[in-house]
């Protein structure tokens, strides 16, 4: 009897001792607050998280292109009812994709992650000596820039949105809308400050970012991070959206004057449309872009323009989700010698598969961007790795041309426009390169300057999520299209706020046009 008591005593004590320990488990599936913001690696995971969330926000449901290209744009959809609704600006239609795209949550994820990063990064600085002052300065500049970028993107989509610049962890108070103009002022000042702190390139011996950034060489960071010129390029867009064309000239000139310092160049039409060209992988010419890097296994079945536009014969899918109808193509690409799309009087195309493939079929396939797998022409597997490019040098050049035109400096504008023309209208009737054939802009041939610039933009950036915003700027400048101006004035250019979001936050009201 005694023995038993003793035995059970011992047994119980043994297990009881392990009891506290047994109840403390550090999960392997997540990192808890107490184990984070300690080391250089934590800082890296944090900043890459902000980038990753930005990429996801833009790629979600192919939003970047549905917002920018599909909405009242050049594309039509053969079978997707939801995209047809977007094309018609019928944004309250009850389709999951339309509903999802009217939800801004994913942009606020960027903002929240950025806010947390900015609040907590000093802890890393205090804990880990490897995390240098400079590392922190460029990190903060990038994160602030990305936060401002998220606001800029949201303001373009929804107009007035809630404005939050702290994480408010644990108490997620509802916040009402702040006027878009105030937010854009904030965006501009944040981006300007970031531009000052950022280097031209990372891990490239720049005085503003000496040494290897997070121990990785320059190749790793090409095109993937925000650099000084990225900041100025986006600033030019911010200023153009606000109609501050003098600022546009300033910011875009920063880019155009210094692009060689950042290892960039104007790209050729072939480079633009090659599967392994400009959109493939990551490179410095992607002025502000988010890569789906094939080598890092980031290729994706969705979240890219290809999954919307490509179809047979480029990939093995019968019907594209969206396509540019034949008569639209013919009315847009009217000029001869255009390498992007070239058709002769007999109706034969000579532009190979650059902008359009299967032109004679029922649905011409928009094949400008076609980074299949690792930049191949293999039609069998629809995994794409094209980078999501927000802006590039050609964009900034045409933006400056636009600004000069608005400011009345037409000759400078024409110079900028011709930079692009020189690189695009350089093939002969058979589509073969002939650099001498290009002709400068002239009003009798190409219409009014502002129209010519926007037509050029329409061609050059087709499928890059720009058309919708270009159109708004154009109509604002032109002031002739009454229905569209009314759309601008009564808020019809914005998206409705998702019902889900409205249900959560009583301080919000539906955007007036969509009430």
């Amino acid at each position: 009897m005694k023995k038993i008591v003793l035995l059970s005593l011992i047994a119980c004590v043994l297990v009881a001792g392990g009891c506290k320990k047994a109840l403390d488990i550090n999960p392997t599936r997540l990192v808890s607050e107490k184990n984070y913001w300690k080391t250089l690696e934590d800082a890296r995971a944090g900043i890459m998280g902000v980038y990753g969330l930005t990429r996801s926000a833009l790629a979600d449901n192919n939003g970047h292109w549905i917002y920018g290209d599909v909405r009242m744009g050049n594309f039509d959809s053969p079978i997707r009812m939801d995209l047809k609704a977007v094309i018609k600006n019928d944004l309250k239609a009850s389709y999951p994709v339309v509903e999802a795209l009217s939800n801004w949550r994913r942009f606020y994820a960027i903002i929240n992650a950025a806010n947390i990063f900015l609040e907590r990064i000093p802890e890393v600085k205090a804990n880990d000596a490897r995390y240098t002052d400079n590392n922190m300065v460029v990190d903060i500049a990038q994160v602030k820039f990305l936060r401002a970028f998220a606001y800029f993107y949201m303001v373009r989509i929804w107009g007035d949105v809630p404005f939050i610049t702290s994480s408010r962890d644990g108490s997620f108070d509802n916040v009402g809308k702040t006027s878009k103009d105030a937010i854009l002022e904030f965006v501009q000042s944040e981006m300007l400050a970031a531009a000052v702190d950022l280097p031209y390139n990372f891990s490239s011996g720049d005085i503003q970012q000496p040494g290897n950034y997070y121990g990785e060489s320059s190749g790793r960071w090409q095109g993937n991070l925000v650099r000084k010129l990225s900041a100025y390029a986006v600033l030019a867009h911010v200023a153009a959206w606000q109609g501050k064309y003098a600022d546009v000239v300033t910011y875009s000139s920063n880019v155009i004057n210094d692009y060689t310092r950042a290892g960039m160049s104007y790209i050729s039409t072939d480079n633009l449309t090659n599967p392994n060209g400009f959109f493939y992988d990551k490179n410095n010419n992607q002025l502000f872009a988010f890569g789906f890097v094939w080598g890092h296994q980031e290729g994706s079945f969705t979240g890219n323009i290809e999954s919307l536009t490509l179809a047979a014969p480029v990939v093995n899918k019968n019907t594209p989700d969206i396509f540019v109808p034949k008569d639209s193509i013919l009315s847009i690409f009217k000029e001869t010698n255009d390498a992007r799309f070239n058709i002769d009087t007999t109706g034969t195309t000579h532009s190979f598969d650059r902008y359009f493939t299967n032109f004679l079929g029922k649905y011409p396939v928009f094949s400008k961007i076609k980074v299949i797998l690792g930049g191949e022409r293999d039609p069998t597997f629809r995994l794409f790795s094209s980078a999501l490019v927000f802006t590039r040098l050609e964009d900034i050049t045409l933006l400056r041309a636009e600004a000069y035109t608005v400011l009345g400096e037409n000759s400078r504008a024409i110079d900028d426009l011709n930079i692009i023309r020189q690189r695009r209208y350089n093939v002969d009737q058979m589509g073969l390169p002939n650099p001498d054939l290009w002709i400068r802009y002239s009003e009798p041939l190409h219409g009014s300057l502002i129209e010519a610039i926007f037509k050029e933009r329409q061609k050059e950036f087709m499928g890059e999520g720009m058309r919708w915003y270009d159109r708004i700027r154009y109509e604002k400048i032109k002031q002739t299209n009454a229905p569209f101006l009314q759309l601008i004035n009564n808020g019809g250019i914005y998206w409705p706020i998702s019902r889900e979001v409205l249900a959560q936050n009583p301080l919000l009201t539906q955007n007036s046009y969509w009430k």
Partner: protein
Amino acid sequence: MRLIAIITFVGGLCFTTTSFGNTARSVCMSSHFSFRGNFQQQTDTSKKVADTGAVGIVPAEGSIQKKLQSNGNSLDPKKLSIFPAISLQQYLKGEAAGLYVQEPSGEPGTVQNMFIRGTSQPLLSAREVFATQPLIVVDGVPLVGEHPFAYDIQQYKFDRIGPATNTLANINMANIKSVEVLKDISATAIYGPKGANGVILITTIEPTAKRRITFDSYVGVVQPNSVVTINGKFENDFRRQFYDKYSGTGNFGSNDVYPLYLSDSLNNAFYGPSNWTDKYYNTQMQYGANASISGGGARANFRFSVGGIKSAGVADNTSADRYDTRFIINMKPMEWLTVSAMVNANRISRDRNKNVRDRLAQVNYIPDLSTPLAPNKDRYGQYLDQFNKGFDDNKTNTVNGYVKLGIDLQKFKFVSTLALDYNEGTRDIFYARTLLQTNNYASNYFGYNQRATIDNVATYEYDLNEDNKFNFSVGSIFQFDNYRYSYAYAYKGANDFIKLNLLESDKNNSNYLNPTVFRRELVYKFLDRTRNNQVSFYGKADYSYKDKYTASLLLRGDASSNQQPTKRWFYSPVLSLGWDLKKEFLADDRSVSNFNLFGSIGRMARYEHFDNYGQGPQYTAAIGFTGNAIVPGYNGIAVLTRPYMAGSIGYGLEWAYTDQANLGLNISFLNNRLSTSIDGYFREDKNMLLGIPSGAEYGYTQVIKNGMNVRNTGVDLTVSGIILPAGKSLSWNSSLNLNYNKNKLTALPGGLDKLVIGDRLLKVGSSVDSYWLLENNGIYNTDAEVPVVNGKTMTYNSIQMKAGDPRWKDINGDNSIDDADRTLQGHALPLLSGGFNNDFGYKKWSLSLNFYYNFGRQLLNQEMANRFDFINREGQNDINSVREITFWEKRGEYSKYPLYNPASSVGPYQVNQDLFLENASFVKLRTVSLGYDFTDYFKKRSSNFNKFYVYVSANNVFTLTKYTGQDPELVSYTGYDNGYGMQIPRTYTLGVKVDF
């Protein structure tokens, strides 16, 4: 008494608080110490048992605990074993009042769900289903289920990655002595927080000192029900109606496409005979055999059993095979010491269905879906042949066992158990190029679920005098759960001959450990693990006065590593009372043989299985987006962000718990010829976690908060009667069990009174399993019929309604149809369910008829909604636009539905409207079996025979229902019938059971 005090004290060492009671706790086996198998009389006629003979109601006399429980809890495993089932759920369906079993597919070995006394939460995903399952305890080994954490990496969550085999397909009914369904808190509390949803207690047959050999076997066939097939012409005619009505030009827009497979009427594959059923449905054999031997002496004995079964489905050549073996040994080295050990090992392998959807969900790649499988037999056969170029191997191994040490000093007993349950699954796949637009696919999965338990219990019986008896127990439980998987898949291998993802094995090669057959960039690898531990202490005192009044008080303390450190312990009491009215008032009344009243009230913690809530604010690597859940990082660098998609987790999350009260009555008359148990219950699960959609401006989809309460109230009733007693020429026993259950949401976190989650509405005061639907009142035939109020035409979500749109009821009268006009309707779980069993005996013959029924249950016929919504589904090339071969089966009633304009953007055929809500009540004849007992015949020839019983049975004979789709049972927990349920087979079985 002193001893108890010491042990209590020792238990108290673990935590510093000295609060009373939470240190004590009781035995998992005390409640079934004395248990006696009984069997329906027709197979045991030799032994004229005094039992009722009805469905195994086994009142265990003597134990105080037993008096506090309903008689309706116990089932007769011998009778259950007649059913040619493979999973525990199939065995138990319709057999116990209050236990509801879902069998969403007749595919053998697939996952099925059980709910005891309703669901404690809205069933939003696999996570909630996992959290509402009862705990299964086999001989004191708490079984571990398949943890749903693997769903996190899945784009399409139809089945969990891996073999997705029902982990309860490992219970061989031939080895089982008793099955008890413990429902009320007086019985379940002892099993702790994991038993909060009820406990199913399974006890296996113990070794006998006398040598005994048993053998049973059956062989049967499964047979499909006949179906009506359709072909491309039928579908084309169906669609043409819409085009004729709504489009002058024959299409809905200049850039529309009409599907080629329907427009080409000369295409024999689609327009020819629709005879695919020859290749899809088939009659298959199934069989089972079990044998056991037991023997030894009084001091040491053993039982060894083996079994094998093949369970077959009626479609797609599906089947599940199980081999099991079990060894149990008891030793009594000293009079007061018993050591026993058990090992049970199972292997289940499964031939799975070849559904396109399930394959694509696994492959995670959607090829062009514009042309579905053709209804032509040869074409379908060619498709099936492609599977022969690859493989899809699904294997699950289960091992569980225990070592028990028992000390019995008459009044004092001590049992220490080390129990282990482990199940592992592998799935190896290779799909040839021909199945996926010239891309082949290989995948390997290995995962396990493991639970180790150390359970110590000490009991002390203390009889103050003849009238006052006590029984004290204290106990502790330490439980360690560990779940893990590793998973990889790859696309586009070099060819169809190398079916494995080979790695470079040469250490000196720069490509070392990189894939050689598949491209490195197209090989995806996953590794995940989650662990959690539970520590519990309890104390329990049972008291009985003159055997008339019984009382039992349990106090327990539970802690889990999945709870936040500041709120780790949860203390709770349970009080049970019993009153023997027979002894009190009717001791001399011979017409009443038994009359007990019992009740319990108490509180118990609910276990949380996910490890993220215990950590408070946290960071994860999830930065995926719609359609790409597994984004590996940014620029090849791992990321950590807040769990924006999964929801914000703050500090201060607490245990959820359940408050339960039960009042029951056992009464039997006329020497137990008529017996009834009735239990009224109240069960409110409280303070449960729920993701509240909020914090969108902080990036979150939802914020996880405590505070959801769901109440289930209902009645369990079991009535059994011997209408004609055995012994005469004809005997007839009849028994009815039913459960009436209603659930109600009583609180939402933060005092909210309603909440929309996806297309569900959770509203305080309404039930959690209702659908949120628009009310459909026909169609607007012309634009003029659309109501106009103050010059404003009626809208649907701000879209103007037009001719051809549904006439939805404007509930709030604001002349616009939106979510405010949806109402909660119907129930996905039945209000009333149960079984009705009849056993007839005539001489050596026995006949039994088992019915299973559900009433007050509705479902949404999504399959029909999909068929009518063809325009949208044809347009999207996504997983929802997959059409299976069963697309060519005519199900449902087409004429029921108005012809709306399918191209309208108001979503005229959206499933969430009462147009698609149907009554899913049914009555099924589940079993007819006819047996003949040869025992006497053989006994005359050899005295060794104890039993020789031969039977034939037919299962799933017919279903009576008003539902117009397939079998109304074939629906997942959501209540949406998507048509994926495979017929539950009708089986014909011939079997024999021998004991000697």
